[in-house]
Every structure is written in structure tokens, then in C-alpha cells.
């Protein structure tokens, strides 16, 4: 009579045979979700403690980040532009005092760490994505809030002010930099494509 094997079954089998697998799975998930990604980024401080939250209270985005007459985008304001208000102290903070002393008085540009910096070969026109273009199409109603439109692509800046600037060690870009899939979310969307002629061809964005 053949001898019957004494293999464990049920919960006992899981514990005895599946435990190493489960342990590996849990360990990898912890490493890959939390520990390794943190290693990829280095936290940096902005040279000036600037806060969008206090500026957005009585200003629009376009007051500082405007389109020039030739259609190009001014992006980060120069010290000269900032000095139109901050030539003298507007508040009482030490950060503002330091800014005026180090940059406005010294007529130096601030080496900002730019969250939305894109590679040189990526072409993006703010002029083609502004509120006027949307108003003309009328898809989002007659009134398109300019600040809300900015936040369609850019993260909520008032929330970002408090978030640390994390630079990817491999790419050199900010963690908040838009990726191609962010652009594709509109450019590859059929309805949007039909309404705006926003082609998905490579050379629409890559020059």
C-alpha cells in the first residue's frame, strides 16, 4: 500500500508555503511605493520665500505672468517687474526684507527653482491656450475664469507654496513638472481635438 504524503492544507499550507511570497510582496510594495521614490528626489529650498497665496488675493495670474505683445510668454517675472511693488517694503516679513536687500537693491535676478520648467525641445504656446481662445470656442460658457484656466494645467499654486520643491536626481526636473501624458489628456481627447484642431502630431509640441 503506497504511503500517503502528509502535506498541510488550508490556512496551515498558506502559512507554511505562502509566507515567503507574501512577505516579499509586502516588502516590495513598501519599498516601491514609499522608500525608493523618496530616494529619487532631493528637497531644495527656493532662494526667496515667495508665496502665491498672498499675491493671488487681489491679483490675477496674468498680472505677473503675462503674454508679451509679440505673443511670447513672459513666464517668471524679472526683478525689475517685482520691484514695481517691492521697491519698498509692502509688509513686515523678514523674507521680503531679505529679498529687497539681496535682489532688488542689488539689481540681481532671483535664481528661482521653476516647477514647470520644460526641456528646450518642447514647444508650448501660452497664447494658444489662453482664456480668449476658450471664450471664442464657447465650450466652457461665455465666461472662463482666467485663474481657473491656469489651474487646469498648473497645480494649485497656493497649495504648492507650502509644498517642498523636490528635484528628481535623474532628470533634474521638479516633481511637479508636467509630463507628456498631462498634455495628451487634452490633445488626445477626441472632442477637444475636433473643437480646437489641437493635433496630436509629434511636431505640435516637439521642435
Amino acid at each position, binding site marked *: 500500500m503506497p504511503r500517503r504524503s502528509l502535506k498541510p492544507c488550508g490556512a496551515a499550507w498558506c502559512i507554511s*508555503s*505562502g*509566507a*515567503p*511570497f*507574501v*512577505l*516579499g*510582496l*509586502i*516588502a*516590495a*510594495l513598501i*519599498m*516601491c*511605493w514609499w522608500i*525608493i*521614490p523618496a530616494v*529619487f528626489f532631493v528637497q531644495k529650498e527656493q532662494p526667496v520665500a515667495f508665496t502665491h497665496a498672498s499675491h493671488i488675493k487681489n491679483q490675477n495670474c496674468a498680472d505677473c505672468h503675462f503674454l*508679451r505683445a*509679440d505673443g*511670447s510668454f513672459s*513666464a517668471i517675472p524679472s526683478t525689475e517687474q517685482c520691484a514695481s511693488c517691492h521697491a519698498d517694503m509692502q509688509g513686515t516679513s523678514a523674507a521680503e526684507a531679505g529679498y529687497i536687500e539681496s535682489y532688488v537693491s542689488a539689481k540681481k535676478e532671483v535664481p528661482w527653482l521653476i516647477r514647470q520648467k520644460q*526641456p*528646450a*525641445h518642447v514647444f508650448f504656446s501660452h497664447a494658444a491656450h489662453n482664456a480668449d481662445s476658450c471664450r471664442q470656442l464657447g465650450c466652457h460658457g461665455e465666461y472662463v475664469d482666467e485663474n481657473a484656466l491656469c489651474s487646469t494645467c498648473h497645480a494649485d499654486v497656493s497649495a504648492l507654496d507650502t509644498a517642498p520643491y523636490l528635484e*528628481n536626481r*535623474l*532628470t*533634474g*526636473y521638479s516633481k511637479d513638472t508636467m*509630463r507628456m501624458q498631462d498634455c495628451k489628456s487634452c490633445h488626445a481627447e477626441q472632442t477637444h481635438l475636433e473643437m480646437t484642431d489641437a493635433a496630436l502630431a509629434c511636431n505640435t509640441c516637439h521642435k
Partner: protein
Amino acid sequence: MKRRDFIKFAAGAGAGFAVSPLPYNLAGDLAVWSQNTTLNVPDGENTFAYTTSKLCPSACGLKVRLLDGKVLRALPWEEHPLGGGVSALAIAEPQLLHSPARVKTPLLRSAHGGFTPISWTEAERLLLRKLREAEGDVLCLSGDETGSSSAVLSAFLKGLGSDKMYFMPSEAQCASLAWQMAHSPGAGNPNSLYKAANTQVGFDLEKAGFILAIGANFLENWGTFIRNRRVFAQKSGQREDNFALVYAGPVHNQTASAAGRRVALKPGAETVFCLGLAALLVQKYERRLNDRGFNVIERNLNSFTPAYVHARAGVLPSTLEDVCEKLIRAQNPLVLCASAFNQGSGLGPSLAGFLLNLLLRGPLNVITLHTPNLAGVKTRSEIFRNDFVKDLRKAGGTLPAKLAVFYEANPAYALPEPTSAAAAIRATPFKVSFTPFMDETALLCDLILPTLLGLEKLDDIESPHGCGKGFYALCRPLAAPAAGIRQGPRHGLDVLLETASGLGLRLPANYETVLKNKARDLALNWNDLLNGKAVERNSPALDSSSFSFNLFEKLLFEALKTEPPEAQLSLAVLSRCALGTPQTGIPPFALKTAWGKELLGTSLLALMNKSTAQKFGLADGAEITLRSRTAELVARLKIFEGIAPDSVALSMGFGHTALDAFSRNKGANLFDLLQAVEEPGSELMVWDKTGLNIPLSRQTTIAATQQGDTRPHFEPYSAAPDVKPGLFRRQMAARRLTPPARGGIHSRRSKTWSEAIIKRRDITLQDGLPV
């Protein structure tokens, strides 16, 4: 842990890794990392500034795009009097600022033969000492015909006691001398014959209802060719008054491509063809001029029968009569007669052109030139009277002075027999080159002083050859001197003017003062000029009574009595504006306009029609040796039917041994084949009639036999009857644009188009010529 447990743990870890976002994020980061470059695209505000091109001989207007004040791009300035497009050279001006061939600091030849950088102060001190040692035995050769620099240089030389101020030879010189001599009252010493020292001829294309271009490639390199293109595009596009263009020349060039009718001429036969037409006008249509000297012209024209023109120029009598009839019927016909490569033609073509225009009452203007008011200054016309090639020949093996100043001129490359010119430069005790680029001549000099380019310096441009009315504009500094260029004077001539004060000469302190005084004398607002304003001045129409024909017998008909050199082939020179000037070399973007296989090695492409090639037993692609009386050159044969019979066409602009990588060691220098001879009557040196022989070697014969030619054979273009406005002109009319600035006759589009037209013809050949 057992082995099996470890495998289970690894499998679990792998599964965890796979379901986490890490692999996807990592892949994305790697993709971005792989695209990271050091390329830095500048960002800033775009502005536009308007100026006039100093580098381009057409002096076209430029709309310069600046990004945060830095020059980025040159665009056409449509409203400029000489604009309407942009040439291959002018469009490359922003890139040429950063050419690796730029001279960045004063250089002194050292004892071991190389160059040592020196300071501006040292350079000025050395120049002052050498000028004192030369004791007035100084010459200056300038490549800047249109600026006030020549006036300053001539006044400087006069102060030193020298009259040896020269320009590089050009069509402008031939036209100016012909103009001056045509205004002379009588015979005598040639140097006392020149009159009209302050005027030049203006070609009023805007008024012309019919243009006959004889030799003059007026849509590609003759005169103000960008403005010529604009006027032609407007007129042909609007079908203005049945406007038509006829081109007569040895090569099917860009002008021929756009012309309604094309006539094949033997190279250098422009004058004969022109006089054949004049003879027909006088004899058949009884056109005459009320001048006492005209009977001499009439008597001489009797010998220019259609049969004689056929024998000398290769044009059939019926063609001659047909063209003549078109001229008679046209309203305001204008004849442009010049060398097809813009130099070396002597006075013949220009004088014959004047005669034909006067008979036809063509729209010619009189342009008054303004010369800065300096002690001992020479006008542009007076400087043209000095023939550098002749004086170089006379001096025998050296330059005709102890000290030579080359101002933006490159004689070691762009004179006939350049090796002799280079040897003469070497043999001269001290020579200085004012140049923006390290060219062939600079390499032979003892002192090199960098000059700035048109986008970096303040300079002026006055009435370039070929313009219709008086023209004046400034080019001004839009860009800071390119990186690495050591800061020095604002203009190269400021060094000379400072030296002048050291020598005790009475000259203005700097070049800007000269220009300001000139603007004041011309009653022009300096600030307007600084803002780019280009001024067109009123120029009266030519009054034929101001012309004198007394010298025409001596200057024009005498020259034609000499027979062309006996040779198997006549050389037709192709001058392509995309290949730049001798000073600049080939502009950065223009190298791609070279024809297929043209840049293989250091030989040239020789264009020949098939019947001519068959005479020598040659096939397409054969390597041939072309031998002139003084030199020989290896070329590769390309069958092209747009060449007159018994002729071979070669391109000029290749074969630089200096300058940058875009120009150096590409092809051969055509000037090696050219030999200057004296034009009877005017005693001006000419080199537009070069005979070539092909010494058939064994290799050539084998190459010809082995390769064979299976390409379709098209008939010679000379036979083409009138062509209705074709694709080329329709496209220009539709787009209101000038013809393409690059590509030339061999660009894929125009070649295909011209071949397509040729293909449609039914041609009968008689005596090797089309009927």
C-alpha cells in the same frame, strides 16, 4: 531560509515591484534623462530692427529679429527701396557673426610664419611706423564699393602722397568707366578723357515695359538683384503692359529660367550681339541719334550684319531679327548688357548697351554720387579709373608699392591668375589686411586688423551698381561684436584715422564724423538714418545729348577687331549668388544649394551640352582636364543642355583655401583658369573670353567609353521659341514673391521645369545650331 522559500520571497517582491508605479515612473524618468541636452533656447521679448545689408552686393533691406536685444534672424524688408526679398548671403548675416573664420583680435606675423595676437595699441603703433618707413609708397585695394570707406582711404593715401587707390575689379567698374568715357568730348590722353566723375547710370527697371538682358544675370547676381526680382515678380505677375523678359547668354541661368525667350550666345559675345541689334535698328528701322559723332557709329555698324553676328556670337539671323522686332514694338524697352559673371568684360558690353538703350530711348537715369568732403578725396568714379590688375602686371612679381593695405578685399583668391597675385603679395615688404574673416589674402599679410560686420558696425551704402535712382542708407550696430572678438575701435577705419593724426594728416577723428557730415551734406536726418531709413533720391532721366560718340570707334569697335582666342572650347562662367562673395566665402546655409556630387573632392563640375561632349568622345561623369593658356584644372563632366555649343560652364565661388569649414577645400578655384588680357582702346584688363582645351588622356577616353550616357537627351535651350508664362512665373504671381533665393537653375524644381520646357520643343539643328 530554504532555497525554495527564497525563490518564493523573490517572486513576491517581483510581483510587488510590478504592481507599484516605480517601473513606470523609472521608465519615464529615464526617457526624460535621455533627452536632456545642454541646448539652451534663449527666451525673451522679440523686437524687430530695420537695416540694409552691407555684405550682400544687392544691398537688400533686412528686417532683423532680435530676442532681448540679441540678433537672431534676418528677414526680408519688403518696403525697402532695394528690398522685397533676402539673398542667401544676407539671410546668413546673423550666423556669419559667429563664423569660426572671424578674426577676433589684431594679429602680427611672427618670425616662424604664424600669427601672434597683439593689442590694438601695438597694432596702431606698428602701422604708424611702417607707414612712415614707406614714405608714401603705399597702395590700398578696397572691396567696399558702396561705402564712404573708399573716400576716407583715398584721402588718407593722398595725404601720404599716393594716388594708388583701387577697387577690386567688378562690373560696376566696367559700367562706370564706360559711362565716364561716353561723356568725354573728344580724343586724347585716356586719363584726361574721363568726365562725369560724380555720376553713374541708373537702370529704371520700374519704368521698363520690356527687358532684354544680354549676359547680365539680373535675377541672380547683376546689380541690385533682390530689387530686380521684386520688380520682375510684380511686372510679370500683374501682366503689366505685356511685360516680357528676353535673356541672351551662354548659360541657362536663373534669369534664363524666368525669361519668356532665351537666346544662346557664345561666351564673351555679348557686345557683338548687342551691336548686331543696333545695326538692325539703324539700318532696318532707321533709328538714329542727333549727334555729330553718330555717323562714325553708323559707319562701323555696317559691318555687323546678321551673318557676321551668327559667325561671332552663334545667333541665327532670324533670331536676331525677331528680338529686334520685339524691341521696336515694346514700350520702354531696357537693355542690360554685361558680363555674365559680373566682372572682367571691359568697356565693350556697357558701351554697346548704352548705344542700344539710346537708340531705343530706354529708361536710364543719371544718379549723382556724393563724396565726403575730405582733403584730397577721390570720388568712386575716379577710383575706378585705377586698374589694379594692369598695375599688378606692370609691377612684375610684386605689388606696385612698398606697403599695401587691403580693406575687405581678397585679391589672393578673386583675381585672374590668383597664384601670381598671391606671389606678388608675398614679395611686398609689408602688407596689412582689414578683414572680418581670415581669408586667403589675410593669411599672406604681415598685420591683420579685424573689422566688424554690417550688423555690428556703423557704415553707409550709397547707390550700388544697377539701382535705378540715387540710394543712401546706413547699416548700424544691432549686435554687440560677437563673442571672443576683442573690443576695439567702432569701425576698422578708426584705426587708420587715428594713425592719420599721428602722421599729421588733416582727417576727421573718426569714421562716424565722416558719415554724419555726409548725411548733413545730403540734407538727411541722422536719427532717421540710424533708425534704418533707406532713402531713394530723385534722379533725372538720361538726356541722350549728354552722350558723346566720338570715342566709340576707338573704344568699342577697335576692341572687337581682335579675334577671340583659338581654342576647342569657350569658358562660360557661372556666378551663383548663393556661393557668397570672395570675402565671405560660402554662407552657412547655402552649402546645401550645391548640386548633386558637386562637392566630391577638389574638382569642379564642368557643364557641357551633349553634342559638344560627343565631339570629344566624352560621356556624363567623365573626368576631364581643362587647360587654359596658363593653368589647368580637373573637372567632372555633367551633361546639361542649357549651355551654348562649343562651350563649357564652370562655377565660381569654390576652391577657397582659407575661411571656414563651409568654404575651405571644396572644389577648385575657377580664377586659376582665367587670364587677363588688355582690351584694345580702353587698355582695361579683361578676362571674359577664355579659351580652353581638353588634352585627351588615356583615363579620360576609358572613362568615356566605359560609362556611356543613358540619360534622356534634350535639345539645346537656344532653340526654344517664346514661352508663355510658365509654372515658375505663375507661382511667383500667385504668391507675389520673388523667385527662390537658393537653388538656382539646378535646384530640383527649376531644373525639372526648364527641362520640361525644353523637352516639348521640336528642334532641327543646322550647322550645330538650332533653326
